């Protein structure tokens, strides 16, 4: 192979035979190739070099596995908020002009897309004349900018509609979805989708063909043309796709609709006018708090992905004191709803999984459901029956605990009875090897009350999944009194291999999520007692951005479950928040929520998927004995009543050192409760108000007593003006080898 003629830090130029030049992308210091400052500068240098040494054709490829080119460096995106709109526009224009220069080069170019090609990476690929994607399952293409509250800013909204049509381009950009190489081929986004090993050869063949036919000149001219839809089709697009975007974003996320409007306007204009519209739209969005919060949430996720779960003092791999164990043989004990959900997640993630339940009937009933869930095809919204057959071999079930003797991690998931859990955990320890990690999936049992059955409690911790496991991505990893760093780090790693978001928390009642949820749920019932209409309470919460209102959530969780959880919480917060008498009254009446068809609402049927028919007509009578003085409240006040107690609880959680920092709280409420990402999490929401404003708003509720009293931490923040939850990188990163 010829020697590279010039070496830069992010790009490698290589001369191939036949006058073809290849540019290889390799951006150091990032898990993906990203378009950072260095990359953009070097791309410009390379263009200059090529102009002096014009090739017959140009190949753009990645020198790394599974990463063609992701978009702009998120760290750099996170600096635009402080810039004035005009400067942001300029940044867009600069990046786009570079890609435009690239596109206008006299030689034909082809992008070889193997691995992740999103955002700016796809915009670069679009600036090439041809695109060859690979069949590599890691090859994905898309423009996910709207998920960060933005839109493509380097020509994506200009080139994509001209390449694949206005409607399809809007669908891709406004949804932010990514697609595979083969889907991209069908959509016309790439010109071929080939096996990885033949990608370069195919690209060269394409180049030769397009040089020979001069087809690329014709294509370039065609792609300059505006896309004109006939009137009915463009009206129809607005009436349908536009309506879908509005109903999905509920007015909380502006970017998809801005993307829609921008493309509808710009598709019919010249490239130059379209570019100006794009820059303006990007700059406008960059000034929104939604974009800022979404980028922050993205960074929280990235930080979590790299985090090993341990405090700064722990030593990883460099020293043998912490050994991170990448387990291969997991087992789940208990085949109830949670056990089945956890098992399905394991099978879906590729683990050969053992499931034990002493009751053969329970096993028999749960296995089909586990396989169907594991083989769920999200795209087609149905179970893939072929996949069920393939996955069957990954699931082994037994009624004998002895069958898991060789397992490396056990997740105990039997019902929430402390005595039973203690017995099962002791039996598990007696069965498995001394190195096996043992976890309990519990929402109410303190880890300490279970840990003392172990002869080696260092290998034991909590691993709290949320129901339904398939939807809720959070996992609380709960340290018991003796849990070792190795155990924590191994369980965190295991949760990530299940594609979950693990947050490490210290043992305490309700752990993290249920702890901050309780005051919010409690407040909703207090509002009821003060005469606020139940549907109004839920509506205010939904408008805030929650997926369900608090009373709907009670009904979904089940009032009996909520009642028992409330008993546990009373230990932790009973001095500030008294358990409400309304919940036991509902339980006594047999109104347990969706499962019985009646709770705060009446349902059309019973069961998890039951739909609301109306407010439970007899609810008023039930509440009557517990009425409080009626209060007239605005929606804003109701909203504050619901969410300020959650914020205060989160601050107390920080005081008690239950989590390592506030970012974990925000990540947890987003991934476990569906707290609106556009608000950045409960602490970020507090920060958007400012601590002083929070104190001020609490003042009007001082008549409610201790639960609305500003804690010391809040007052300190109000004094200093420091935010609650800054995103700070963590020192302890996941070792690369695992």
């Amino acid at each position, binding site marked *: 192979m010829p020697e590279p003629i010039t070496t830069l830090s992010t790009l490698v130029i290589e001369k191939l035979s036949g006058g073809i030049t290849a540019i290889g992308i390799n951006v150091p210091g990032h898990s993906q190739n990203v378009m950072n400052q260095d990359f953009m500068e070097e791309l410009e240098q390379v263009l200059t070099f090529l102009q002096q040494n014009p090739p017959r054709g140009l190949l753009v490829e990645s020198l790394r596995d599974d990463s063609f080119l992701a978009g702009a460096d998120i760290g750099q995106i996170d600096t635009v908020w402080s810039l004035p709109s005009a400067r942001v526009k300029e940044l867009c224009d600069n990046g786009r002009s570079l890609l435009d220069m690239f596109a206008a080069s006299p030689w034909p170019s082809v992008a070889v897309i193997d691995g992740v090609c999103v955002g700016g990476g796809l915009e670069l690929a679009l600036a090439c004349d041809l695109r060859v994607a690979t069949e590599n399952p890691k090859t994905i293409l898309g423009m996910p900018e709207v998920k960060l509250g933005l839109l493509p800013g380097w020509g994506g909204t200009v080139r994509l509609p001209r390449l694949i049509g206005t409607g399809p381009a809007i669908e891709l950009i406004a949804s932010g979805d990514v697609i595979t190489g083969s889907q991209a081929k069908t959509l016309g986004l790439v010109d071929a989708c080939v096996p990885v090993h033949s990608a370069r050869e195919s690209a060269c063949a394409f180049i030769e063909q397009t040089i020979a036919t001069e087809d690329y000149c014709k294509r370039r001219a065609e792609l300059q043309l505006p896309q004109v839809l006939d009137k009915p089709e463009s009206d*129809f697009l607005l009436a349908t796709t536009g309506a879908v975007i509005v109903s999905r974003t509920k007015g909380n996320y502006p970017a998809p609709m801005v993307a829609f409007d921008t493309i509808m306007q710009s598709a019919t204009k010249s490239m130059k006018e379209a570019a100006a519209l794009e820059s303006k739209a990007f700059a406008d969005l960059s000034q929104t708090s939604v974009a800022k919060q979404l980028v922050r949430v993205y960074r929280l996720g990235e930080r979590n992905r790299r985090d090993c779960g341990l405090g700064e003092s722990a030593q990883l791999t460099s020293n043998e004191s912490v050994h991170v164990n990448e387990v291969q043989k997991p087992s789940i004990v208990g085949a109830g709803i949670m056990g089945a959900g956890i098992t399905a997640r394991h099978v879906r993630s590729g683990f050969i999984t053992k499931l034990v339940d002493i009751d053969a009937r329970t096993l028999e009933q749960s296995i089909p459901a586990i396989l169907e869930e594991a083989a769920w095809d999200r795209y087609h919204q149905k179970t893939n029956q072929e996949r069920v057959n393939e996955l069957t071999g990954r699931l082994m079930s037994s009624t004998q605990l002895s069958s898991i003797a060789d397992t490396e991690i056990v997740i105990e998931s039997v019902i929430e009875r402390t005595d039973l859990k203690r017995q099962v955990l002791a039996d598990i320890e007696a069965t498995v090897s001394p190195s096996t990690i043992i976890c309990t999936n519990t929402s109410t049992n303190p880890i300490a009350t279970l840990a003392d059955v172990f002869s080696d409690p260092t290998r034991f911790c909590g691993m709290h999944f949320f129901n339904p496991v398939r939807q809720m991505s959070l996992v609380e990893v709960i340290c018991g009194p003796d849990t070792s760093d190795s155990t924590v780090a191994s369980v965190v790693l295991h949760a990530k291999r299940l594609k979950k978001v693990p947050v490490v928390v210290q043992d305490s009642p309700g752990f993290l999520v249920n702890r901050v949820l309780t005051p919010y749920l409690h407040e909703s019932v207090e509002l009821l007692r003060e005469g606020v209409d139940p549907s109004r309470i839920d509506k205010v919460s939904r408008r805030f951005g929650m997926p369900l209102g608090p009373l709907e959530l009670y009904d979904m969780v089940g009032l009996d479950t909520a009642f028992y959880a409330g008993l546990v919480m009373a230990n932790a917060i009973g001095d500030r928040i008294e358990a409400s008498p309304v919940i036991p009254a509902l339980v006594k009446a047999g109104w347990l929520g969706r499962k019985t068809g009646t709770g705060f609402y009446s349902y059309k049927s019973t069961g998890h998927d039951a739909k609301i028919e109306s407010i439970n007509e007899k609810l008023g009578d039930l509440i009557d004995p517990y009425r409080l003085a009626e209060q007239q409240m605005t929606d804003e006040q109701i909203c504050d009543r619901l969410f300020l107690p959650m914020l205060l609880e989160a601050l107390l959680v920080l005081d008690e050192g239950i989590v390592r920092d506030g970012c974990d709280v925000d990540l947890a409420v987003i991934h476990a409760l569906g707290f609106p990402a556009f608000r950045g999490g409960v602490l970020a929401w507090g920060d958007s108000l400012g601590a002083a404003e929070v104190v001020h708003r609490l003042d009007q509720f001082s008549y409610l007593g201790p639960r609305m009293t500003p804690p010391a931490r809040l007052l300190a923040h109000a004094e200093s003006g420091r935010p609650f939850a800054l995103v700070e990188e963590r020192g302890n990163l996941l070792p690369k080898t695992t």
Partner: protein
Amino acid sequence: MTRLSRSPETTPVVVSCCRTAIGRSDAHHGVFRKVRGDELAALVVSEAVARGRVPPECIEDVLVGVTQQRAELGGNVARTIAMLAGVPFSAAACTTNRLCGSSLQGMSQACHSIMAGAEDVHVVAGVEHMQHLPMNSEIDFHPQAFSKSSRAVLSMGLTAEYLASSRGISRKAQEEYALESHRRATQAADTGFFKSEIVECQGLNANGVLTFIDRDQSIRSDANLAAMKQLKPVFLPKIGSITAATSAPMSDGAAAMVVMSEATARRHQIIPMVRVLSTAVIGVSPALMGMGPVYATRKLLHRSGIHLRDIGLFEINEAFAAQAMACVEELKLDHDRVNVCGGSLAIGHPLGASGARISTTLIHAMRDRQVHLGLATMCIGLGQGIAVVFELIE
């Protein structure tokens, strides 16, 4: 095709037409839930041949319209339907697909063949079993086909929502239209008008008891505005105007007719029912698919020289109330002359069968009311229209 005088040898006539009752596509309550689609079609094919007193050996081609050509209706099912119906092997068979216009397409094709002096005696039929073979399942549309429109045009309901909103057709007006469709259909069923066109067919009632079905299952004699008002929009949750009451129901059913030249009919001493004077098909914007009948009708009128005012009865297939209303409005038709026996909103819309179904109903209504000219027209998914005009033979 023009309305110029034509010799009897090349003038197509319909000599018989009939249909099954139309069942609801419902796995628990549909009357034809245990009856195969090909059996429904074979029944009406043999009945149409018998009613027309057509000597089976002179049948030359069997054209069956089906939109979902797979499973029990797969593999050129027209041929197996002909074999099931006892049509001699000497007759050819072809399955046609112009989506909702499939059997009206078969009808047109048969006429064109006769006019051209090619195959003469045809059985034209249509069938759909939307419970056994749901619409659009197992179809993989090419996304690039929608680069000049949008994938949303695949939803007929959304195209109808678009017509409703762009033409200001209110939900209430749609419901009143649907109510009238049920009222007319109920009247036609109750007075026995449909008796002459419906072939009794074995099916099951709601309790699973074997029943001979002779009444369209979706017609609601108790339809009322108060109940319609309760329904939720189907295609655009919350903001839409179209509900289950103002969309044609999913249906199972079949219809068939025998078409031949007037000369052949005379030769066999068969008394024909109507002449087919002219046909037309046209393409329109996919988003405007619901307006296909307007453009197809205009094209047909222009081509044949017939005046709209001379046409006494219209059958405009009711895919959606809003869509049918938009066509009536655009063509400035008198609603009293349109779908006089109720339309597909009430009777049902078994896609491939509907062209033959509305023609059958139209021809019977023309005879009943002694109307000289009648026109059947349909909208077709992804933007087409089809129209056929019939002349009563007195």
